[in-house]
């Protein structure tokens, strides 16, 4: 027989349960509802963790101590364990009178009378709810027991739903993370394939271009010699043609550089010497730029192709110089670092990645120039991408640098913000056996 108040209460209880999606909220709601609806001193909820085979006090109302300060954890050998094994509610009017249960009692909040009801959903045991010691005289009534049973029945369904939801959202997060990392990998691979395709195309185009370029150069040279030099306009025109064709040739040379699967000539080098040599070659361009060197002492030698690496450094120095037309500082740092976290290669290739804990030789080339916007930064290694304006850059410099560093099984990264300067970081491998460091 349902009382009107009981129906109203159950309706409100279920409404609240449905809207609570978080497991802890549901447990709290169950525990508080039981306390508010029944004339009892205390209510408590023990959740069961099948992985640790332990009950823990997840929520309680009416305790005379702060249960959160000292979380209660008990094993199967307890009254809760007894209820779990029997899978039905236990109604105790006087605990002291029950020798068996008194011995089992590990629940610190139990005194005299209590109902302990299991929350079970489709055979899955989730925990137990206690309602303890009536404020009103007399034993627990059948009506009170049935209220508790209704609470645990509905509570179990909600708890299971919340658990499923939690699992689902965890899965969704895992899936999302997996998707993101796959997408990142795919982007890098597409980029890498794109580069290979461009490389092939570039080498074909470069070869085809150089024949007509060579022919035009020969033609201009011939005309220069047979046309009397006093014809100023003609010589001027020829000189412009010659200059332009030489520029075209330089572009084609960088295309060839970009596409060529060059065999590197490795030798043991002192990275500082390579940097110094490169710096010497751009010295005249430095003008009002101050060079700051922060070089760690006793650096290990590395096995590199000196000419190729110089090409990289010169390119990076020139980029830095172009970014600081009004002057500024060019900072060169070289040091050995043990990586805290893994560094992924710019093209997603495994043999160009570094593991966490690995020691790497790092070269940083930093300028205090104009910086690069986030949008441009994403495309910085794309071949033919340039911000230098028409005719001023081929947009291949950094792509070539990247290829050269990749051929050294290293990796390269650019950090920059508009107006904040730019930092290029090169990670070079330090061989296990530093053969070149013996002599």
């Amino acid at each position, binding site marked *: 027989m349902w009382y009107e108040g009981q129906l109203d209460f159950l309706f409100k209880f279920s409404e609240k349960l449905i809207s609570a999606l978080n497991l802890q909220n549901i447990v709290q709601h169950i525990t508080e509802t039981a306390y508010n609806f029944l004339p009892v001193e205390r209510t408590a909820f023990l959740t069961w963790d099948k992985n640790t085979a332990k009950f823990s006090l997840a929520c309680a109302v009416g305790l005379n101590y702060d249960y959160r300060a000292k979380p209660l954890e008990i094993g199967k050998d307890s009254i809760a364990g007894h209820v779990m094994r029997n899978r039905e509610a236990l109604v105790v009017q006087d605990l002291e009178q029950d020798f068996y249960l008194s011995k089992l009692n590990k629940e610190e909040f139990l005194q005299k009378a209590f109902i302990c009801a299991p929350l079970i959903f489709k055979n899955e045991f989730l925990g137990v709810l206690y309602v303890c010691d009536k404020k009103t005289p007399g034993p627990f009534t059948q009506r009170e027991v049935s209220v508790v049973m209704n609470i645990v029945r509905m509570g179990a369904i909600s708890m299971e739903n919340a658990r499923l939801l939690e699992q689902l959202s965890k899965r969704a997060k895992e899936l999302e993370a997996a998707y993101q990392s796959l997408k990142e990998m795919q982007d890098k691979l597409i980029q890498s394939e794109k580069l290979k395709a461009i490389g092939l195309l570039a080498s074909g185009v470069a070869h085809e271009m*150089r*024949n007509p370029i*060579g*022919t035009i150069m*020969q033609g201009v*040279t*011939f005309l220069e010699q047979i046309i009397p030099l006093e014809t100023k306009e003609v010589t001027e025109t020829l000189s412009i043609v010659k200059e332009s064709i030489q520029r075209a040739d330089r572009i084609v*040379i960088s295309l*060839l550089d970009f596409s060529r699967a060059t065999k590197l000539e490795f030798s043991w080098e002192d990275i500082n010497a390579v940097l110094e040599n490169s710096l010497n070659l751009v010295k005249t361009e430095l003008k009002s730029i101050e060079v700051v060197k922060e070089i760690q002492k006793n650096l290990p030698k590395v096995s590199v192709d000196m000419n190729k690496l110089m090409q990289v450094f010169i390119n990076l120095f020139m980029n830095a110089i172009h970014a600081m037309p009004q002057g500024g500082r060019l900072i060169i740092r070289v040091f050995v670092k043990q990586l805290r976290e893994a560094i992924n290669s710019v093209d997603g290739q495994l043999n160009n990645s570094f593991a966490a804990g690995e020691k790497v030789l790092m070269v940083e080339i930093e300028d205090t120039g104009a910086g690069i916007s986030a949008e441009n930064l994403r495309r910085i290694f794309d071949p033919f991408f340039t911000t230098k304006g028409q005719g001023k850059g081929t947009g291949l410099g950094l792509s070539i640098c990247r290829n050269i560093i990749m051929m050294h099984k290293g990796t390269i990264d650019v950090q920059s913000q508009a107006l904040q300067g730019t930092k290029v970081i090169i990670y070079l491998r330090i061989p296990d056996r530093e053969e070149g460091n013996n002599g």
Partner: protein
Amino acid sequence: MDKKKILIIDDEENFCTLVKKNIELTDEFEVSIATNGQDGIKLAGEIKPDLILLDMIMPDMDGADVIACIKNDKILKDIPVVILTAIAKGDESIPQAAFSGGYALLSKTTTIPALLACIKKNIK
């Protein structure tokens, strides 16, 4: 004194014509042209040039095939060869022995002074 004979073997006819014009401006050399490998070897046998300017990438018979034929020919085997190629990078002769078989190698976009210097250095 007779002019030294140079043979250009290159499938780019326009290129050959202009190189010939430029070299002949010096009045020191006489230049003949063949626009494929087979014609080039045939012509070399006939005129016995003092130096061959050879393109690498050509249809049918490429520069490497031409070199192999010349090396196997008793009469032609000692003729110096300068390789002119579109895939060499710089202006100057690059000692890329593996690629050029020890022959001088020049970019097709080289300047005439550099080409003449290379010819004079290698010609017999």
